[in-house]
């Protein structure tokens, strides 16, 4: 016989104000099977929890309903309390009286009536709950980090420092990411490469880190602790084991006019190339699209010149399978394509550039060796207009959100320009200056006050090129309340930060959600900012939202802490909400096997004592099962059920609503 305890929480005034908790307790006491029904100011408080524990012990409860806030808030708390009192935690359910009732209804009698219903539904459910026990799964103590920018490098280094193995997967030929392309960094103006390259080298040489550059994740199977990842190692056409990185090949390569991605298309590279001199690994790859040997079978210079015979034109993509226990996604960002803004030239004006292009112009290792020269004619620009919020905070044509880093890097750009071109004029159009961060506001102030950047509050309505080559920038100074028109030599657009194209595919492979903009979704916006909905998959850096370097590094280290925490024990306990097949009823139509998103339902041969196969049925691998229950609903004879959400429980819930 069921002995159910019902505990109604007032949540201070949060529930109590609109729900008559005492009345709900009284009504609940009348429900069949309820032996104790109490209300209390704060159930989640120590005395509240003690109340539940005492009742479990004294009344020998077989099930508990806590009617309080959302189970997302305190289910764990109360289940732990139940466990401490000796009741299996899965014999406790919560009725959501706060988020789903008191906060959304004002009429006290109506809210109270609904509250009674909500409790009754859960009482009927909990009567049919079974004791469940956590599922233990082995954990493969190796992590995979996807993305070799500063986020990925930091996460990998921290995990490696914790003594666990890391596979760092980077799709381009070198790690380093966007940070390697920056000239200086705000707010200290220290040289980006100077602080980054030691980390890159450390990552490459760390005994716990396996670098897989020029590689992409092809498929992710498995689950937390036991992911099986297929990685495509793209053909490099250069054997990294033989190559010493001497550079003869790319010096001699006749194809030299390929726009360099690293230089934001402002510089050129050869067909066999390393993206930049400090690349890690410093081993070139052949760009199969542009190499005439690979496209037309003509040339072969690099092979002839290579002293180590490291060139292999027959190289093929290779699929490598690795087993990892955790995945860190650090795929970073790219810039929004401003050609959507017709009023800014629609991408056709060569002297209207983006932030990365400016970084390369300002970088000592860039195409202009650090001199600010405009792309069209290589002249030093005397007036540079910087436009913030290009594509950000624009629901109609661009992105609705603030890209967070543009105020700071625009200030930096203006400063760098003024440091390099002393008589130059730097004009910054801004909507607001968002400079929250340590030393940030001081930095923007310095740009304005010490470095003479002219800040104009307002939007630019149009940019066009006059016959003499001048860019005419027309806009409004909303503080002065007048239109402005500036004759500029160069315009730098602070394009919105957007996630990497195609990132959805990786998210879907991993079971990670993403928002409408394509940024990966964290498990909780406040309390679980690095976890995702997919257990064992974590987020670092700008793939989750626009971030600057310090925030990115902090999140990457947080990921490492999460991964190391996961790897701390050889086994992991998982929620026992899994599907089960009744093998007597299963007729092996394989609908569930086709359906399972995790490949958790599998064929299972039932054998007699002689080892003959008597029949084949479906079986659920509880390590793989995530408990969605899709197989349960697909099974025509209901031969599968889902622990925690059994047919019997749901039937009782629906019946209770009659």
């Amino acid at each position, binding site marked *: 016989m069921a002995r159910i305890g019902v505990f109604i929480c007032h949540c201070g005034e949060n529930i109590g104000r609109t729900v008559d908790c005492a009345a709900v307790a009284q009504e609940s006491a009348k429900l069949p099977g309820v032996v104790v029904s109490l209300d209390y100011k704060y159930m989640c408080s120590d005395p509240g929890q003690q109340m539940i524990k005492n009742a479990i012990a004294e009344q020998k409860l077989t099930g508990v309903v806590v009617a309080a806030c959302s189970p997302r808030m305190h289910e764990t708390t109360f289940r732990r309390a139940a466990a401490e009192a000796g009741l299996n935690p899965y014999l406790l359910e919560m009725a959501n009286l706060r988020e789903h009732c008191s906060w959304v209804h004002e009429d006290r009698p109506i809210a109270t009536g609904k509250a009674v219903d909500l409790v009754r539904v859960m009482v009927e459910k909990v009567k049919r709950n079974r004791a469940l026990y956590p599922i233990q799964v082995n954990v493969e103590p190796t992590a995979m980090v996807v993305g070799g920018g500063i986020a990925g490098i930091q996460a990998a280094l921290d995990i490696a420092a914790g003594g666990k193995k890391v596979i760092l997967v980077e799709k381009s030929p070198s790690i380093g990411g966007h940070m390697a392309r920056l000239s200086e960094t705000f707010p200290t103006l220290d040289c980006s490469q100077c602080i980054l390259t030691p980390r890159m080298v450390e990552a490459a040489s760390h005994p716990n880190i396996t670098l897989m550059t020029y590689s992409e994740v092809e498929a992710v199977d498995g689950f937390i602790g036991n992911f099986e990842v297929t990685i495509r190692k793209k053909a490099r056409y250069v054997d990294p084991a033989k190559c010493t990185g001497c550079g003869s090949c790319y010096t001699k390569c006749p194809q030299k006019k390929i726009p360099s991605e690293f230089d934001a298309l402002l510089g050129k590279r050869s067909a066999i190339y390393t993206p930049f001199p400090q690349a890690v690994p410093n081993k070139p790859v052949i760009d199969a699209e542009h190499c005439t040997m690979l496209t037309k079978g003509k040339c072969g210079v690099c092979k002839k010149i290579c002293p180590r015979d490291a060139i292999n034109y027959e190289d093929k993509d290779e699929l490598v399978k690795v087993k990892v226990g955790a995945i860190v996604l650090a795929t970073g960002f790219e810039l929004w394509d401003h050609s959507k803004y017709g009023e800014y030239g629609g991408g056709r004006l060569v002297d209207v550039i983006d932030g990365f292009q400016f970084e390369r112009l300002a970088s000592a290792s860039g195409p202009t060796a650090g001199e600010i020269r405009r792309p069209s004619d290589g002249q030093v620009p005397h007036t540079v207009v910087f436009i913030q919020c290009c594509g950000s905070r624009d629901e109609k044509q661009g992105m609705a959100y603030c890209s967070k880093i543009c105020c700071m890097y625009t200030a930096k750009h203006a400063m760098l320009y003024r440091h390099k071109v002393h008589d130059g004029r730097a004009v910054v159009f801004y909507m607001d200056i968002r400079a929250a961060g340590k030393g940030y506001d001081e930095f923007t102030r310095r740009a304005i006050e010490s470095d003479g950047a002219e800040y104009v509050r307002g939007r630019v309505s149009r940019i066009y090129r006059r016959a003499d080559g001048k860019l005419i920038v027309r806009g409004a100074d909303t503080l002065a309340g007048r239109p402005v028109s500036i004759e500029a030599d160069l315009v730098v657009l602070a394009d919105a930060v957007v996630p990497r194209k195609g990132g959805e595919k990786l998210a879907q492979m991993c079971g990670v959600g993403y928002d409408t903009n394509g940024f990966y979704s964290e498990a909780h916006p406040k309390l679980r900012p690095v976890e995702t909905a997919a257990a064992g998959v974590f987020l670092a850096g700008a793939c989750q939202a626009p971030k600057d370097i310090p925030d990115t590094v902090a999140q990457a280290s947080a990921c490492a802490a999460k991964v190391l925490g996961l790897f701390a024990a050889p086994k992991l306990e998982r929620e026992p909400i899994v599907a089960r097949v009744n093998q*007597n*009823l*299963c*007729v*092996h*139509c*394989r*609908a*569930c096997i*086709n*359906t399972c998103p995790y490949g958790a339902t599998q064929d299972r041969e039932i054998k007699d004592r002689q080892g003959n196969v008597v029949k*084949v049925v479906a079986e659920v691998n509880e390590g793989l099962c995530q408990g969605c229950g899709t197989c349960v609903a*697909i099974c*025509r*004879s*209901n*031969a599968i059920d889902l622990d925690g959400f059994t*047919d*019997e429980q749901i*039937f*009782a819930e629906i019946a209770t609503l009659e």
Partner: protein
Amino acid sequence: MVANINEIQSAAAALLNEGKVKLVLGYRVRGNDRVPAFVTQADQVGCLAYDSACTQNLAAYLRKGEVRSRMPLAVVARPEVMRSLMLLTAESQIAEGQVTVLAVDEQGFHGVLDLAGTAKLLNEQYARIAPDSSLMEQLAKIEAMTPQERSAFWSEQFEPCTRCYACRAACPGCFCERCIVEMNTPQWISTAAESHGNFAWHMIRAFHQAGRCVECGACQDACPQGIPLMLLNHFIAREVEREFDARNGYDPQAEPVIGSWKQDDKQEYIR
């Protein structure tokens, strides 16, 4: 009777004589009825008959233990029955080597085929089997009714249902070890032959045919009470084809229609 009935008989005899099958599942004549024949000896093949009155779907027997124990066997199969065999293959109930097909249609016998050959024949010769036009007309009439009229129409149709499950027994696709209607913890569908139980039963029976029914008509033929089950079956098959571009029982490797998905499946009704 089809003209070349002798060819069916001699093909059956040859299969039995050569030991390729232990049983030939076919039809025989009993008065005005056509009833199944279970031929195990070559000298019995003379009873085998086939004409358009042979409407029972013999593929249903492939779930019956007493019949399965006599595999490999041969089945006299018209196109709809062949489609059932494709469905049973796709749902891993039968495999190549277990079932040989004696292909027939109203014109007569078309040879002895394995399951792969059957799939080929089906797709080449019977890719489009036009649904009964009177069925389509009746459906159009029902769809033109108001919801209240439809509700009343079906309650009138389901009223005589005694829940004998002859429809289920006649259907090759109803091969569950235990039907959902027989599950009792919890009992989703009332077993009382009354309004709500009958409604739920017929809804779920029809729904479980989604992406599976080959429209052989055996269920409706088997129904002692004359319930127009084919209206529901045809409706579901039509919707499945319209929504998911899927036609049932043509591909022995088909993924289940309900149990697979496409990202761009229509969803105009979801807000």
